[in-house]
């Protein structure tokens, strides 16, 4: 392969790696704009109108106010869900009797449509931030738990034998074997959990809130301000993406395999 040919191939790879995703996204906006031309703005606002509304809301400070509220709830819910899932998942993976005792309850609880019963949660736990974080936690908990259990159980039996030969303490086995071995699976669970936590926060705000992106979207719905709804939805997408990407980046930093 000649040098110029090589260069061309590299350029092609770079083009397809970086340019194509942007091309796809801009394509969506173009098509969206074309379609919006034949509908009134309260049915389908054009991207330009959405951008205009976004700048309005940015200037009067309400965008930032609602976004911070949602982000805080999502992050707190994710944090609580992760801690809970780590502790319970590790116990389930290591102790048979805990597995038998709790697994049926945990799995059955996943049949509960948390979003549908959200009003009940607010009746039980009040209208504050706590109840919203709780709803996030409940939604985030299960996928992370499953990944913790799978990650810990899949540690190679030979490596476990190796640690037994050298009389490793439970703490040494945890820090030097189980955590590093389970990390890739764990990060996978966290990425799913991160996305779900934003959805959980929005669902909670839909039910009962005076702040947050869910509240803002509902406000838009009530006022037939569809552009505002779109601002909210796009912000939610951005939040979920940001969490997904930063957790992936964290995983990349931590995993040396």
């Amino acid at each position, binding site marked *: 392969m000649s040098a110029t040919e090589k260069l061309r191939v590299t350029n092609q790879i770079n083009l397809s790696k970086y340019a194509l995703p942007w091309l796809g996204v801009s394509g969506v906006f173009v098509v969206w704009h074309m379609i919006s031309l034949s509908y009134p703005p309260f049915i389908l606002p054009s991207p330009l109108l959405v951008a205009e509304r976004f700048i309005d809301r940015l200037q009067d400070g309400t965008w930032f106010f609602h976004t911070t509220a949602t982000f805080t709830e999502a992050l707190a819910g994710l944090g609580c869900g992760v801690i809970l899932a780590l502790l319970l998942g590790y116990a389930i993976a290591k102790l048979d009797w805990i597995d038998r005792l709790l697994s049926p309850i945990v799995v059955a609880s996943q049949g509960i449509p948390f979003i549908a019963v959200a009003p009940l949660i607010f009746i039980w736990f009040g209208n504050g931030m706590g109840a919203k974080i709780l709803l996030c936690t409940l939604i985030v908990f299960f996928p992370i738990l499953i990944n913790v259990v799978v990650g810990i159980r899949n540690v190679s039996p030979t490596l476990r*034998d190796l640690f037994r*030969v050298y*009389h*490793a303490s439970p703490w*040494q086995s945890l820090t*030097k074997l189980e955590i590093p071995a389970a*990390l890739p699976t764990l990060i996978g669970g966290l990425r799913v959990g991160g996305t779900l936590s934003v959805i959980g926060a929005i669902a909670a705000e839909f039910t009962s809130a005076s702040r947050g992106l869910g509240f803002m979207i509902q406000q838009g719905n009530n006022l037939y301000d569809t552009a505002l709804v779109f601002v909210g939805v796009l912000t939610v997408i951005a939040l979920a993406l940001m969490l997904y990407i930063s957790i992936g980046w964290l995983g990349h930093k931590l*995993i*040396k*395999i």
Partner: protein
Amino acid sequence: MTSHPQTPPILSAEGISVTYPNGTQALRLFSLHAKRGEFIAIIGPSGCGKSTLLRVLAGLLSSNEGQVVFNGQRLRQPNPAISLQFQDSALLPWRTVEENIRLPLELGITNDTTHPQSLIPNSQARPTPNPQLLISLVGLAGFEQAYPRELSGGMAQRVALARALITQPPILLLDEPFGALDALTRERLTEALETIWRALSMTTILVTHSIQEAIFLADRVVVCSPRPGHIMGEVAIRLPRPRHWAMSATPEFGQLLQEIRALLNPLP
């Protein structure tokens, strides 16, 4: 290196029988006595319970009958003095070569050394070998910072061997360490192992299904029957050391080969 009949064995299996929960009997009344510094090779067809035997000798698996005696005491659990090299190299993929080799030292630091079973019974002060020295001994100099995914199968087994040796164990158990390697790499590693064994003089029990490898390395070859495994015969190897592969063309080597083959495939 030579056997002294009067010295007591450092490690012995006494009438070991192992039956797995599914009903297969892996070992039946297996007895083996290893003298200090001896190199024993155990050879037999696949599935004759050789790996089970090593797991019992390492204290990882308890037998249904019989006992393992290490240095005069019954062995009831794994002992860091008995190092085991696994069939697959069992390296931690997130650690470099050097970090993998150091693992036993790291785990030993906070070990409960007051526990009677974890004391290494060999009162002559044996300084912990310098990891660097061991790395060059197994031929891995220059690869200290490599990760296991960057190594070939033969190199991974060298790392596993260095890790098994880092604590200067009096006993080394090898479970078909070169089984998955190509013939050339295998010959080179076998020679390297013989050199290391002569340098460090640990009691070694090797499980293999290569007759050549067994003869090349061992002082004594123990021939095992198909499942349930028990001893069918023993052949003493009196070839001079250091050994080299040119010996495999000698009539003595050929005769040993024949003798072991005959034990493995008895005429009906």
